């Protein structure tokens, strides 16, 4: 299957190795991965801030760039949600184009489980205890309630229950810099309830930057691993 | 009503009508289908899980004698009672009538009960003070008057609706202090049902 990889801004700059692992994983699962070079930002920062016109411009650009793709995969639940769920709301006249793209766009974990039908990856993570942080968009918009944990377990990991598993970490894009004290307190709640694990795994780079930044500021020693990297290590 | 009130009424209604007209009037979805459980068993389950008590009368004895002994055996024993005017002589305990504010127990007969919510239906003609002020409320419930669903009960209640109706579904409770549930905060701390 041909897959257009949409790397997203944060993964490009902060999780480049994880994004490369996502490419490796997709190839390992038999996909032919391409990288449309004109891709930029999906527009989510503007959309969440209420800057609809700017968000629409970025959405239209992305729709152009991804026009020919059979399937688009993003290593970010949040940006995948932007393309899948919010483009059709934004698109106005271009709504049919946005809806068509929506149906071909997948978050990485969603693609592997729901499109490829794969849940067993290997046993590279056996003996490893992990906690999963689900980004809210992946959880409540894409309803990926079990997929990341299923894949991690399918790679041999022990997924440890986390009291605050389904709670927002407080990132929220612009929210994390506008309401920074509340945002940090929300991260604290996640960190305070974290069980004893080797890794915290998440498919959302924004959440990880925020949780990791907060945990380092607190002096915690928690290892955050992007889902793509965790799964690729699970294969081997 | 003052002239100001009159004009506010017209203004509010005009603004409401304008908003409704611009949006289009949406239709009512019809009835909500909730499952109908076995009336009495469902009521007992729901009412007791909310902290209500269901007491079995000794049917071998006259009801009023049984109730008298039952109330006296409570801790603390009931001395004076407040009895609603709807309670027939055969269901009134042989204890002194006192003002509701000083009674150890209030005695009522329910108009009916609802199984799905575990609720007693108490019309205001049963004297509200009797239903609310004593620390213990004993309610006679005719078994044939337990409705499976709230909707059925309220529909039947429409004929001859009294000035007020209380639905009581357990004892008075609050968790406002330290998140600990306490009972008998304002209303009765014990709500007891006896089927007749």
């Amino acid at each position, binding site marked *: 299957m041909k897959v257009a990889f949409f790397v997203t801004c944060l993964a490009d700059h*902060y999780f*480049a*190795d994880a994004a*490369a692992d996502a490419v490796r994983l997709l190839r390992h699962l038999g996909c032919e991965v391409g990288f449309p070079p004109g891709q*930029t*930002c999906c527009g989510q920062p*503007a959309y969440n*801030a*209420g800057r609809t016109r*700017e968000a629409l*411009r*970025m959405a239209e650009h992305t729709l152009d760039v991804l026009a020919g793709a059979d399937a688009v995969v993003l290593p970010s639940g949040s940006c995948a949600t932007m393309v899948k769920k919010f483009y059709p709301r934004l698109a106005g006249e271009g709504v049919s184009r946005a809806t068509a793209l929506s149906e071909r766009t997948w978050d990485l974990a969603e693609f592997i489980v729901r499109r490829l039908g794969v849940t067993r990856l290997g046993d590279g993570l056996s003996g490893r205890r992990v906690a999963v942080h689900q980004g*809210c968009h992946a*959880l409540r918009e894409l309803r990926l309630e079990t997929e990341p944990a299923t894949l991690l377990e399918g790679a041999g990991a022990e997924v440890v229950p986390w009291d605050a598993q389904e*709670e*927002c970490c*407080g990132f929220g894009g*612009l929210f994390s810099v*506008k*309401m920074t*004290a*509340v945002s940090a*307190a*929300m991260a604290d*709640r996640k960190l305070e309830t974290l069980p004893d694990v080797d890794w915290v795994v998440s498919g959302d780079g924004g959440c990880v930057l*925020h949780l990791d*930044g907060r945990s380092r*500021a607190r002096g915690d020693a928690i290892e955050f691993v992007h889902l793509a990297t965790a799964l690729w290590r699970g294969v081997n | *009503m003052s002239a100001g*009130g009159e004009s506010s009424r017209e203004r*509010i*209604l005009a603004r*409401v009508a304008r*908003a*409704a007209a611009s*949006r*289009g009037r*949406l*239709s009512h979805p019809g009835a*909500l289908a909730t499952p109908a459980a076995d009336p009495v068993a469902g009521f007992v389950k*729901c009412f007791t899980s*909310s902290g209500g008590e269901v007491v079995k009368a000794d049917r071998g004895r006259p009801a009023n004698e049984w109730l008298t002994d039952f109330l006296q055996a409570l801790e603390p024993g009931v001395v004076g009672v407040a009895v609603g005017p*709807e309670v027939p002589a055969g269901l009134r305990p042989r204890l002194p009538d006192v003002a509701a*504010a000083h009674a150890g127990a209030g005695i009522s007969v329910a108009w009916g009960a609802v199984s*799905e*919510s575990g609720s007693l239906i108490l019309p205001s*003609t049963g004297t*509200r003070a009797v239903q*609310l002020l004593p620390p213990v409320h004993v309610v006679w419930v005719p078994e044939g008057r337990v409705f499976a669903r709230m909707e059925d009960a*309220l*529909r039947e209640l429409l004929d001859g609706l009294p*000035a*007020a109706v209380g*639905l009581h579904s*357990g004892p008075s409770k609050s968790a*406002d202090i*330290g998140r600990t549930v*306490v009972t008998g905060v304002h*209303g*009765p701390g014990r709500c007891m049902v006896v089927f007749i």
Partner: protein
Amino acid sequence: MVRDYAARSREIIRDEPGVREAVTGATIAFDEKRRKGYAEVDADAWRRWAEGVKNHTLTHLDHYLTEAEARLQANGAQVHWAADAAEAREIVIGLATRRAVASVVKGKSMVTEEIDLNPALEEAGIEVIETDLGEYVLQLLEEPPSHILGPALHKSLRQVQDLFAERLNTAPDGDPDTLARAAREVLRNAFIDADMGITGANFLVAETGTVALIENEGNIRLTTSLPRVHVAVVGIEKLLPRMTDLAGFLQLTARAATGQPIGCFVSLIQGPAAEPGDDGPEEVHVVLVDNGRTDVLAHEHAWEALRCVRCGACLNACPVYRQTGGHAYGHVYSGPIGSVLDPGLLGLHDAMPLPFASSLCGACEDACPVRIPIPELLLEWRKEAQDEGLTPWKERAALAGLASVATRPGLYRLAGRIGSRLGARGAGRALPMLGEWARDRALPKPSPRTFRQLWRKGIE
């Protein structure tokens, strides 16, 4: 009230850590009960039904308001219309003065908080006593409620113990039962002495003119039964068409609020006592309050927020609310629903920055019994705030800049390279937002090479 959410929330988190602890504990407990309460029924079907009934009612509100008015009058109750808070206060004080009311008992009501009724009554020389246990605690502390359902849930047991020891002479370590008993004694006398009872309403049924009130303590039943005058202050959005609709709403609201099948006490009030045996009030007044609701109703999107039944489920589900409780929001309606209602009721300018006081996580929408799309409505208000220039210019400029760059791939790649070269610290100086980020967090570490660079080299 302080209306700078960002600063106020920071203060509460820093200076009153007990609030975060108490609110988090209480709301998580409420939320778990709500989930259990929903799981016992076909909650999705109930919620869709309730959404439909409310949408129907709101788009026929003129019809149902006049029907309710006619029924209430036929039942012997009196109906008053208040365009705004001042008129509502005037009506209630007028009634109290005419009936020579010296003392009022109140059931917990958000709308009377909204119209600032208590200070006005006190100014008129009338004693006002809040009878909900949590509200009573707050009245003694002279604090506004922090939560729709548990107004004092931000207070610890210790704080109530200290308060009651000082004011009600209870033992310094009195347990909740002892404290509640002490309050009951004071309030029982207040009920018996009061000339007027004032409540809000959960619902007003048009078909019968029924004011419906849900509670657990019994104080509302007493407030509407013992004093000779009962005044119900009712927002015009509280209408329901028929009693059969009420049957569903009583149960759904209770499940959403506390997970209970129904509140321990429900009062259904049609009018003043008329029949023998009824010891209820001689007069019943219903004050129908607009106070911005018709503005919300006319709003293209925000009107959906008028479906709200004030159950508090969205507050309980909200991880943002949990950090501070309601006071940080600076308005009577706090939490997710407050952030979408307040801009409509008060005007967006006065409610800023509440539409931004959310991470848009969506937990509120999943909890809402009438399926109000809160995250979408927050976005609509954000859009209006941007269009009206109510957000900081730096933020607007940054997002406009992002769009310009992101629609030109060459420029986007160049900006990325510059950003990487500057490193996080350098970019922090260039982007003021990163300075805010760094107040509470370590700066992010950029990858040594971007994905684009890795891709060009070839990924193996």
